[in-house]
């Protein structure tokens, strides 16, 4: 197993390298440049802008810029400095990544805890009232855009519904902590309810629907009948035989979905003013802050590679037929 992990990690290096060239090209091919905002500032002269362009090396050929950028990453392990703030990109990402991981992580755990039982129940009781309710919910949940859901949550739980004891809004409009608070765990949890809830609702809809289908496939399989014929209890048949087999496609799905989990987080981070990576990315993209933009994408790409490796390892854990040498 450990050989396998080492091999996969080593394989990831050239992959990331090729990816970095493609990302660099893609980001730089996007029209526009980081100095457009300066162009709109009447206090900044065109001469200053041209000087800045030279200083940032934006007038150099593409490959020179790439080599410079890649060299500092490989040799110094440094993602460079932001064009806009002069701060180290690694520091900027370091400030944001725990926030996004917290948001996405908790939302995802909640999703699995709800989606798997919900999907399983729904499949087990196919065409029952519960199944119809769940199917309707998942259908609606999948159709509703996540940002709309977020806005409705703000409207409902921040503007309309007050906490009956304090008379203040039931949940905060956004942010991670209350303004001027001592940043306690309770305050954090209180701030997490709406963003986590919004993210999970959308994901639960998707995953429970997927798991229901996956479970239905398994329930109709021959080995289920065999298991029952052997006289196993219904609970054992369902929760040991069926569930474990139905989880397999889910793992693949999650690994493939990993990038979109972060994409979903972008909307939620924006609506709930959550200081995460998604927003850092969005702001960098709008301002064409190339070092930050590339840093965020590269870290995300790295996370996706890691997630894929983890998924492969998980197959081995879940499915005894999968062997790694």
């Amino acid at each position, binding site marked *: 197993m450990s050989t396998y992990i080492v091999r996969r990690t080593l394989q990831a290096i050239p992959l990331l390298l090729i990816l970095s060239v493609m990302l660099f090209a893609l980001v730089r091919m996007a029209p526009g440049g980081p100095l457009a905002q300066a162009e709109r500032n*009447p206090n900044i002269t065109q001469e200053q802008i041209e000087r800045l362009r030279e200083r940032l090396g934006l007038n150099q050929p593409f490959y020179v810029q790439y080599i410079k950028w890649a060299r500092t990453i490989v040799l110094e392990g440094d993602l460079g400095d932001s064009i806009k703030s002069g701060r180290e990109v690694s520091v900027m990402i370091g400030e944001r990544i725990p926030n996004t991981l917290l948001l996405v992580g908790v939302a995802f755990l909640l999703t699995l805890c709800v989606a798997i039982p919900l999907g399983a129940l729904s499949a087990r*009781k196919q065409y029952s009232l519960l199944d119809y309710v769940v199917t309707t919910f998942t259908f609606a949940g999948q159709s509703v855009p996540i940002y709309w859901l977020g806005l409705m949550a703000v409207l409902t739980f921040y503007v309309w519904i007050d906490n009956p004891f304090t008379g203040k809004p039931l949940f905060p409009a956004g942010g991670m902590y209350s*303004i001027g608070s001592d940043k306690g765990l309770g305050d954090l949890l209180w701030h997490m309810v709406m963003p986590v809830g919004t993210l999970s609702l959308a994901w639960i809809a998707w995953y429970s629907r997927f798991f229901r289908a996956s479970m239905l496939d398994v329930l109709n399989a021959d080995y289920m009948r065999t298991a029952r014929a052997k006289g196993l209890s219904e609970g054992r048949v369902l929760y040991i035989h069926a569930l474990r087999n139905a989880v397999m496609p889910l793992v693949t799905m999650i690994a493939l979905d990993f990038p979109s989990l972060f994409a979903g987080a972008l909307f939620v981070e924006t609506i709930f003013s959550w200081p995460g990576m998604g927003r850092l990315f969005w702001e960098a993209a709008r301002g064409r802050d190339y070092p930050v933009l590339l840093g965020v994408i590269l870290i995300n790409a790295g996370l996706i590679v890691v997630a894929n490796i983890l998924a492969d390892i998980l197959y081995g854990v879940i499915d005894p037929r999968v062997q790694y040498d």
Partner: protein
Amino acid sequence: MNRSKRSTIFVTLLLALVLAISACAAPPPQQATGGESAAQSDSGGQVVLIIPEEPATLNQYLADAAIVRQVADATTAGLSLVDQNGDFQPVLAETIPSIADGTVSEDFLTVTWKLRPGLLWSDGTPITSDDMKFTWEAISNPDSGAVLSNNFEKITSIDTPDDLTAIVHYSEVNSAYPMQFAYGLLPRHATGEPTEMEKWEWNRAPVTAGAFVVSEWNSGDSIVMDRNPNYYLDGQPYLDRLIFKVVPDPGAQMAMMIQGEGQVHLWPGATKEDYDVQIEGEGQLQEVPGQWNMALRFNLSQPFDDDPGATPPHPILGDLKVRQALAHAIDYDTIINDVNPGVSPATSPFAYGWYRCDIPRTYTFDQDKANALLEEAGWVLGDDGIRVASGAANAEDGTRLSLQMEGYTNFQPLVKLEEAIVEMWKAVGVEATIQNDDFSIIFGSLADGAPRKTGNFDILIYDSSLSIDPQATIAGLFHSSAIPSADNPAGSNYSRWVNADADAAIDLAGSTVDVPTRQAAYCDLAQLIDDELPQLHLYLFTEGYGATDKLSGYAVSIWGSLTWDAQNWKLSQ
């Protein structure tokens, strides 16, 4: 039966869990609206300012984004500022230097500044003329990365005969000398090497002379500023604390204003009518006619000929008669009253400030005149109602009178304006199409291939603004030496307008600090622009911010940012 019961229990438990989470979380003890906190203490309380994006730095000399000044002004004090009436006021300086009192030399090349006595930085260190000298040294250093040059490169030396006096020597006339140190002083003792300016810790936690001092910066979330105990005005600022809360989503911003959690709302992006209804009872949108002047910029030169220069003429727009006709075809009243209500008319680039010049429009709305001019210019109506060339000056016969308007995306008022103009021009047989580009494209550089730099466009339509000293911008926009090219990528005469009289007026305005002379020169230029139409000015947008009714003491200023007068703000119960 048993199982369905169990599933009901499961769903009920799930619901209970969700409810429990929401019920358990107690609201934080310190959350209070500005009004309540003001009531609880004797001092001025705190104001939450909702801002849509986070400033990258608080060092105004490094910043290109508009958001920086909006926040940084709360923690900045310069030698002078421009008040809401467009007048210079001394801040850290005792007076604004002038020729009258001998602090500006007869040749305008020497300016003597006197600091107020007893000034202190926020860390308690005295503010001296050496800090002025350091500010110049740091910003004029080509490796500092400073973009807001503010004519610092024209300074040859600064003498500091004593701690309160700085004598600034210029190599050429700086007509904007009163604004020389308006964006704040940099303390020598608390910053760093000029070449390291982009990495100064000072940029995010400045030791300052301004009204407020940064006490906490939560990346992506909020910036907290507390009152500067060493501020030069006794008893000010009145407020204890400003909290800049980053809220990117407009819906969430609005919700916070409605709930009274925010007291000030930057760039709400709504009309006053809509805004005031939404936060009725809490506050209002406070607006004044702003700096952003909407204009059409006609390309007088041939596009797509691989030459950004002024020749050969544009096949359609190169003919003055066509430009006059296009101007006559626009119904200015409809635009101001119906298309973009709330804006105020502007007929020249000099629509505000001491250089204001309200000339009457030369080519007023008159479709008959527009049609006659187009006929005269050799553009006759085709079968489909769009004119084609037949003896036109610069176009081959049969060329369609079709023009493309280019603006920027994500700005609804601009789209409405473009659509209205398309209809108005169609009425006189001119076909216009709309092409809006991302901000970073339309305002990109020559190297980025930005259309206005390469000259590959027909008409640009967007708003632009002038600062309190317009010389650099005006010279860039209208002087014939400022046509963009590979040798002069910084040029911004996007219309490719060449006019010797205009050049002379611009040169005259830049050669003196005498206001009446400069004003007259700019007015001559305004008339030339309106006659020859390299640009056609339409209107000024309003500017301002949403503010709670509990806030007082503030003045919305066309020249100032959101926080330019934060030291005067007061919060009532």
